[in-house]
């Protein structure tokens, strides 16, 4: 066992009846790392969290957290990790403060003892501490749930889709909080369906339908994108999308915000420039006068879609 790895997974399989929730997942997550599981619904992220938090038994394979086996040493693991499930698991009829106090005592500690760890987060909801948790907004529930998961100063923090359904501003604030927690030496495993959040992680695993597609740093994953990526813009974007797809040299084309991201079948550097000039001629012939084409660096989302077979 590598000492610097806080989480080890090797060959983990898990089925629910006929559904393969996880297929041969192997991962090493280093101590102090902020590690992201990136993938849409049904990727198997929640199942993976439940196996690591000892709530589910894997069908086969080995997993350990803090050097402890998830099957054999589940009691010790439960003492040392913090877990925030997908739905913010709070008692709706208890107030903010009562929820926090409750989870503190459940973990044999007090709010005062670890206040410095949660202060940053809790201070934002403290003005509402007598409000029932059920009456909080999504962003505030998220902060309270995080405070509750942190109150016992866990060595590893498991956050299952903490930002789902939360608006972009609150999401950025949340990731800022995670950065500060990382500085305190806590290993964090976090999952998200938002691809743009991947760049906030030290390393990520791209997941889809129970399989791990790729594991690397965000930059590493982006560097594996082999094709030239073009951003194409024009005034009538929907027509442009259809025309770009009809272009013979197109490998794939997807709408990406204000531009369409286009990859070409041609992969050699020499061939590309002639295909691009061919594209310009093609679009002019279609009657576009305002087209802009520029070469761009791929985002994680581009990489994810490239790894995924055509749906």
């Amino acid at each position, binding site marked *: 066992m590598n000492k610097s790895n806080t989480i080890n997974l090797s060959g983990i399989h898990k089925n629910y009846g006929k559904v393969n929730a996880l297929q041969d997942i192997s991962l090493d997550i280093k101590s102090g790392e902020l590690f992201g599981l990136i993938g849409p619904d049904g990727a198997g992220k929640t199942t993976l969290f439940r196996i690591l938090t000892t709530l589910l038994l894997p069908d086969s394979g080995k997993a350990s957290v803090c050097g402890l086996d998830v099957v054999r040493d589940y009691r010790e693991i439960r003492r040392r990790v913090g*877990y925030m499930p997908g739905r913010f698991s*709070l008692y*709706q*009829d*208890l107030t903010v403060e009562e929820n926090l106090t409750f989870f503190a*005592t*459940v973990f044999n500690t007090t709010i005062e003892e670890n206040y410095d760890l949660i202060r940053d987060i809790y201070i934002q909801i403290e003005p509402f501490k007598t409000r029932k948790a059920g009456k909080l907004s999504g962003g505030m529930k998220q902060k309270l749930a995080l405070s509750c998961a942190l109150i016992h100063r866990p060595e590893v923090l498991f956050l299952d889709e903490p930002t789902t359904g939360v608006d972009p501003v609150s999401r950025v604030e949340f990731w800022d909080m995670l950065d500060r927690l990382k500085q305190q030496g806590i290993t964090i495993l976090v999952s998200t369906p938002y691809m743009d959040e991947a760049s906030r992680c030290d390393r990520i695993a791209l997941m889809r339908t129970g399989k791990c597609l790729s594991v690397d740093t965000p930059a590493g994953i982006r560097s594996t994108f082999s094709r030239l990526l073009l951003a194409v813009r024009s005034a009538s974007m929907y027509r442009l999308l259809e025309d770009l797809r009809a272009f013979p040299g197109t490998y794939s084309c997807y709408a990406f915000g204000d531009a369409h991201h286009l990859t070409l079948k041609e992969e050699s550097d020499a061939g590309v420039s002639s295909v691009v000039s061919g594209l310009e001629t093609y679009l002019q012939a279609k009657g576009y006068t305002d087209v802009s084409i520029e070469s761009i660096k791929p985002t994680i989302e581009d990489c994810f879609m490239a790894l995924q077979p055509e749906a």
Partner: protein
Amino acid sequence: MKQFISFLRKEFYHIFRDKRTMLILLAMPVILIVLFGYAITTEIKSVQVAVLDQSRDEATTRIIDRIGASEYFELYKVLDSYEEGEALFRQGKIRLLLVFPPRYASSSDAPVQLLADATDPNEATQITSYATAIISQWKMERQSEMNAVTAQSPGGNGQLSAGITPVVHLLYNPLMKGAYNFVPGVMGLILMLICALMTSVGIVKEKEIGTMEVLLVSPMKPIYIILAKAAPYLLLSLVNIITILALSYFLLDVPIAGSLTLLIAISILYALVALCLGLLISTIANTQQAAMLVSAVVLMLPVMLLSGMVFPIENMPVILQWLSNIVPAKWYIIAVKDVMIKGLSAGAIWKEVSVLAFMVVVLIVVSVKRFKIRLE
């Protein structure tokens, strides 16, 4: 221990903040007692009676007066013809018709005819037996009067004194009050409802909202979770037991013949059985709805139907009689009747107590074994 107390406090918050549920739980025993005590009583009261008196002598007049004066009957009408009585039966105006034969007083054993509306057979039986009782009582009294008269007059004959009339004594419940039967039944029902249903729903709710996941991934011992969930309801059901006992004592005049401490002790034992059943249900059900349904079908129905609370067990088919043995409420109700109504001591109910204790042990073992430390 601090964990446990904190958890317990949280449970009380849940209960106290859900005002509607708490109100229902506290009001339920009161409503049930009042309902059983007054509304759906099985006792006979103010039954409408008509009389067809073909003899119209002193004896029949005295009997009719007696019937009319009793709290069970009310004289609706004295009839002139048999047909008239039939019409009244059909209209539902009367439930009993007394027909005195001509020259009733002079013929010593001329029968009185009792006609009862037997659409409700149990009631008809009761009505006729009450009426018979009143008539035979009057006969007995007249007999002793006449005996006294003949004793005073040496020339009289002593023939009549030779007749032996059985004297019926109703033990423990001389007034045949229904309350003696249903108060233990209601206690059995309420305890089962609160302890089993509320405990199972309480635990399953945590599964539903996802907090169970967090609790499992904490150093909190499962047994603490279970105990903390159960304790408030045990307390609440004790409050209810005391309410029921007070209501039945002061409102329905049901005496508490035996030891109150013993009564409470049996109730706690029975509540433990119910709590364990609730726990067992919570390990099976995954939604609050399912927990409620299972509780209703598996727990409530047997208490109502198979415990002897409503239907006498002796009248059931053998298979149901056998089945009734695994209904905890049956043993509880027997024990409560023995202590509360008959005033028996602990020695007399050892059998019931050991059955309940055995159930507790089995259920605790099974449900703690089944209580999952993981999600599946």
